[in-house]
């Protein structure tokens, strides 16, 4: 059994297709990301496979009935804002440690909210997004704004085209 350094543990994660490369945001204020319009969270270059995509409550959410859904807007080529999930159930007062996990099954599949904080079963499917040589943003639209709380967004992905990559925008 190995005693790896943290950087080696991270590289092992990068190489495993059940995780892929991790792209995370910093801890962000909910007031900045969960609003009534789409907010760009990640920038995607080329085409990637989303292995998992979620956000975690770093502190408890406000008591507003936000129902976030994931969307993409392609800038190259230009493609209008498109849903890649249905709206989740309400995130009102979501407890610290809870995660909302993109399921990937269909463009109208709702994300799943952890039944218990800090325990997230595998999403049902992966989803490929983007195009050869293209660029897009993964965005979230909460419909109802949050007034408090903080979150971290985590994207685990595999590159599918030459030079494909993801970048957190915050």
């Amino acid at each position, binding site marked *: 059994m190995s005693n790896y350094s943290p950087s080696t543990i991270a590289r092992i*994660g990068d190489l*495993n297709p059940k*995780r892929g490369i991790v792209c995370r945001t910093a801890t962000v204020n909910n007031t900045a990301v969960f609003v009534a319009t789409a907010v760009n969270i990640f920038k995607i270059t080329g085409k990637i496979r989303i292995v998992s995509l979620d956000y975690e409550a770093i502190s408890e959410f406000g008591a507003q009935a936000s129902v976030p859904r994931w969307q993409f807007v392609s800038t190259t080529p230009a493609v209008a804002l498109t849903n890649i999930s249905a709206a989740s159930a309400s995130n009102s007062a979501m407890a610290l*440690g809870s995660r909302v996990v993109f399921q990937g099954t269909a463009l109208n599949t709702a994300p799943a909210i952890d039944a*218990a*904080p*800090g325990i997230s079963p*595998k999403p049902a499917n992966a989803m490929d997004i983007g195009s050869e040589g293209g660029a897009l943003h993964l965005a979230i639209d909460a419909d109802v704004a949050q007034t408090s709380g903080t979150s*971290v967004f*985590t994207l685990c992905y595999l590159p599918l085209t030459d030079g494909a990559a993801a970048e957190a925008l915050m």
Partner: protein
Amino acid sequence: MTNYSASTIDRIGDITRGIHVKTSILPATTVFDHDPGTKVDNFTVYGRIRIIGLNFEVTTALSNNAALLKWQFESTTPVIAASDISAVSLTVAQMVVGGRIMWRGTAVDTAPDISATQASIAVVQDWMDVGLTAGVGIVSSICTTATCTSGAGFFNLYYLPISDGAYAVAAQ
């Protein structure tokens, strides 16, 4: 066909099936004690990890007692009460050396498999994330229904880190 050294084979295993940590060999009287049925800490989790595999492997045949086992996760920093990450297994009575209780991962109420021999016929395909970003938690097991009077074994965890700097160590 390449002729890899043992250490290279180990590294390939870590990359393809997740990083492996295991407990010391524990007496069945500790792991499979349903009265009072207190949790047995298996692994301490720092940050958020992705569990690729989790099982208990028998090193000394278990006694003929119909004990059942399930796994839980609890966050100790911040404090969040324990929740099941599996249902209870079928009986572990008379499990032979090399037999395994295999967590399935599909859902928090999915029962682990019992392999009656060293051959596990259904390799786990699902995974589950546990732990909080920058938190600390424990993967533990709990025995119900009966207590084993003899036998021994150890727990294996195969994982990938998700949050920055995440890792897991054996709790005993």
